[in-house]
């Protein structure tokens, strides 16, 4: 171990064996035998746990250190050493391993956004659901004049823009669909009655009947 300037080393090296002694003698690591030994044991545990491909049991760790070493206490020191670091020593099913800190999860995830557009059929179906909700599949098909594929509705349900609202009280009790909060957010609507152009479309005779609110 290379000698360092006082005070700094103890902290910077995170050496757990640094003392609370008032003189704060850092050379303690080198000169005070028990501490040096303890530090050496901590290093061994660190290296083993770091290189391990799986969590390591206490029994295995004990095997790498001299008999009568209080491995559990050393592990506790190590756990404390790493408690506030980007990597923590954790216990899984009673075994020990290093794990990136929970709040550091974001560095392990890469979020990519994929720009997509709905298919024409999807957009049309969504519009019909929005304007005619609650609306059954048969009614959507009636308005579109074409059958809709199962996938089209599924995509809308999957994105979270459409949802099942209930069942029509008619023979077969068909499921009805409506739009969601997420739909309102995506298209910048406060209420379903805000659908701009609705009145205009109605006045233009493009729509008939009454649109149920929300």
């Amino acid at each position, binding site marked *: 171990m290379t000698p360092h300037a006082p005070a700094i080393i103890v902290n910077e090296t995170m050496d757990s064996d640094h003392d609370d002694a008032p003189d704060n003698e850092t050379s303690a690591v080198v000169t005070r035998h028990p501490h040096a030994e303890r530090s050496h044991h901590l290093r061994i545990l660190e290296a083993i746990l*770091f*290189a391990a491909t799986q969590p390591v049991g206490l029994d295995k760790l004990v095997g790498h250190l001299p008999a009568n070493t209080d491995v559990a206490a050393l592990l506790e020191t190590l756990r404390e050493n790493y408690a506030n670091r980007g990597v923590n020593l954790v216990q899984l099913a009673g075994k020990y391993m290093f794990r990136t800190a929970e709040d550091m999860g974001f560095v392990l995830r890469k979020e990519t956004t994929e720009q*997509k557009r709905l298919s024409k059929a999807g957009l049309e179906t969504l*519009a019909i659901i929005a*304007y005619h909700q609650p609306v059954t599949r048969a009614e959507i098909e009636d*308005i579109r004049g074409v059958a809709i594929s199962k996938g089209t509705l599924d995509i809308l349900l999957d994105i979270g823009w459409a949802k099942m609202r209930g069942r029509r009280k008619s023979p077969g009790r068909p499921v009805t669909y409506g739009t969601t909060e997420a739909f309102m957010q995506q298209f910048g609507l406060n209420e379903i009655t805000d*659908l701009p152009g609705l009145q205009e479309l109605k006045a233009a005779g*493009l729509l008939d009947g009454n649109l149920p609110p929300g």
Partner: protein
Amino acid sequence: MTESPPTFPASDWPDGATDPRRNAAMADPDTLIVDVAGFEGPLDLLLELARQHKVDLARISIVALVDQYLAYMEKVRSLRLELAADYLVMAAWLAYLKSRLLIPLPPKEGEATAQDMAARLAFRLQRLQAMREASGQLMARPQLGREVFFRGAPEPLVIETQREYSDTLIDLLKVYAERRAKKMVRQSYTVKRQPVWSIKEARETLERLIGGMNEWGTFDVWLERYLATPELRRSVRASSFTASLELVREGVLELRQDTAFDQLYLRRRPTAA
């Protein structure tokens, strides 16, 4: 030559394996002869011979080395051992070099001096020795997966793809209006294909229903069962309205509407019973 064998540094043979050939050679230089195939070419053999002098390769006596090599070759030949051709080529070259070194003659045109040739040989031996030592030093370094290790259980990057839809309200309205418009257009042009309730059908139906129409009721109420099919609704309403006007004119039915565009009611004309 009877001195105890030099000990090679551990780093000399990075694979850690002891070299039986060399150990034997060190124990008794004569046994060097036994396994000539163990040497990797004449340069390797020369280097081994040179190393036995335990002197700085830069200051080695080339003449002495040549003598040793030639003596070695002679011994091998006497034992009738197979020798690769390049050992013999080297022997010939060394013999020539020695003669040039001992009897200095002005070099021929374009030929190096004997001293240069000797220096070159010494350099090659030095360089080979240097590379051997470097190889040893390199292999003695802490190696990844042998003495030093990367994280045993790395936590690889998880890639989360987020779909982002760029569809806007305008897109939504456009397709909707388009679809509705298309539908209207198609309805007016393909009217023949639509199921239609003829006025005649409507009149016959109304005439059948008229017996029960004692109270005011809307068309939708009276014709409920005919309106069940969505495609027919418009046609049923239109045709029955027209038919009803005929029946009113004939004094069979009465129509009532409280205000403009309000619901239209009809019933059997009481006196017509």
